[in-house]
């Protein structure tokens, strides 16, 4: 009962085996990781499975960026401000020590209570947030600190001021900035990977997704409103555009799935952080072995190759 997902993953595996990558060790690491992912997929997710991911990805007790940071980093120093207009609390940035190395973190941040949600604008950033992100990414680049981005946003904020401040241009510029960084970049979609607001900080060398995260070009509700002319058809829309981790892996959009504690990450933040830390550590170990030129060459090749056409 091999699913489509399994078949496509097997196809990627066999392709990878035939590609002459830089180092044998790297290659076998890559294969091993894919093999592990393959083992996790037993069947195509159902409409209910997908909707459960949507609900878990948005769960109010789900660990957010700072929940992971406080569990995984020592000597954390948060950096504020875009050096031009403001400090957008929907995106946090800073540096800290992760497993002995200094790592720069950029991540969306939702709020847990009503007050913090308002302050963090539900994790929906203004251009100021992306400009802060870019500024801190360039700091990482200057000192060759690896970059970890944690993606968790319903989307970039759709407001008048956000447009006046250049939302589209900021999202484009942030991606362009990431492509030019001479440092390893690990991006993890830890909750909602909502559209342009998500990809703005997700141009990594390794892109991972938490098991119950979603990653999509539009929200299920938005898609349903436009295509079904009925926002309540969100579940049907989600099933159609498949924002769950298994499908994203199958499509080659992500490189791996970070397991969550049974029941979902919200049930055990410590364990969720341990599992995320392990995946990030593994990815960084692999990436740090690559020369900078090769790293940025592969990063570009990775994103250049995405898409299916005839």
């Amino acid at each position, binding site marked *: 009962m091999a699913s489509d997902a399994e078949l496509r993953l097997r196809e990627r595996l066999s392709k990878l085996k035939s590609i002459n990558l830089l180092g044998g060790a790297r290659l076998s690491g890559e294969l091993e990781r894919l093999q592990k992912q393959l083992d996790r997929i037993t069947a195509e997710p159902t409409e209910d499975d997908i909707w459960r991911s949507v609900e878990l990805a*948005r769960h*109010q007790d789900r660990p957010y960026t700072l929940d992971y940071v406080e569990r995984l980093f020592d000597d954390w120093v948060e950096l504020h401000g875009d050096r031009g207009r403001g400090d957008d609390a929907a995106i946090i940035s800073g540096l800290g020590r992760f497993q002995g190395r200094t790592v720069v973190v950029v991540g969306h941040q939702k709020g847990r209570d009503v007050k913090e949600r308002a302050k963090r604008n*539900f994790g*929906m950033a203004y251009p100021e947030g992306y400009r802060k992100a870019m500024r801190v990414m360039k700091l990482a680049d200057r000192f060759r600190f690896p970059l970890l981005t944690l993606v968790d946003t*319903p*989307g*970039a904020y*759709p*407001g*008048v001021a*956000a*447009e006046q*401040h*250049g*939302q*589209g*241009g900021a*999202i*484009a*510029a942030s*991606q*362009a900035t990431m*492509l*030019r960084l001479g440092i390893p970049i690990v991006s993890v979609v830890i909750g909602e990977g*909502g*559209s*342009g*607001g998500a*990809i*703005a900080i997700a*141009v990594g060398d390794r892109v991972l997704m938490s098991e119950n995260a979603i*990653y*999509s*070009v*539009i*929200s*299920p*509700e*938005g*898609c349903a*409103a*436009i*295509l*079904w002319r009925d926002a309540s058809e969100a579940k049907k*829309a989600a099933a*159609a*555009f*498949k*924002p769950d981790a298994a*499908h994203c892996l199958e*499509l080659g*959009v992500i490189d791996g799935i970070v397991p969550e504690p049974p029941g979902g990450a919200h049930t055990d933040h410590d364990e969720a952080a341990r599992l995320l830390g392990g995946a990030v550590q593994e990815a960084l170990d692999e990436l740090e072995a690559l020369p900078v030129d090769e790293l940025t060459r592969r990063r570009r090749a990775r*994103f*250049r*190759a*995405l*898409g*299916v*056409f*005839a």
Partner: protein
Amino acid sequence: MAEPRIDVQVETPDAAPKDEKQHPNTCPACHSHYRNDELEAALWVCAQCGHHFPMRARSRIASLADDGSFAEEAAELRSDDPLDFFDLRPYGERLAEAEVNTGLGEAIVIGRAAVDGAPCELAVMDFAFMGGSMGSAVGEKFARACESAAEHGLPLISVSASGGARMQEGILALMQLPKTIVAVADLHDAGSPYVSVLAHPTTGGVLASFASLGDVLVAEPGALMSFAGPRVVQQTTREKLPDDFGRAEANLRFGHVDAIVPRPELKPYLARLLRLFANGK
């Protein structure tokens, strides 16, 4: 959680030419009515009031490229349907219909051309093909335009007109943002300049990727260029929007574009830029 979740605008009414009930050749600003051949001769600009009608990709290319200079590339490329996407109708059916209605294989046409004698690469979008939405094929063709420009040492001129990412391709549509941005980065590394012309409308994923990354950004008068469309912004914020919300004129004021160039002046303007850039490295 009640927050809005839409931020890429696809096929929404406010991204399309407004007031669908009106004949498309009737000027929405002054209600003058024209025959197709009149508008084509006038570059689809209202002779009475200067309103810029949407311009189809082939007409646009004819208006910019020197006669007979356009050599199309990747014309055979078509969208696939990786998700077997089915909403009220299958994606495949929408694609087939768009091809029949527009005579185009996709929402973008690319190729080499000369503008006032200056060779360049053109990448021109067509809003009539599924709202100019960007799926894998559009992203691929734009990337190939960059690669062709780099290979031949040519500048790239793009003309965008798009409602955003094509949601029928799900997450792969979103991935066309970084994909086209990679292509622009490679183009820049090859030393080629890139001029991005933003026509009405350039919104969502296209504004949030290549269209914003030109060395020079030129908007057409009145063009909507916003990441989120006016309808979504209004629904989300419940604010009264400024009259020129997201329009080229507001974007110039807020520092996001270099110039607003009326269509009849666009070819000489681009030719001037090409001459200037030809003196670079």
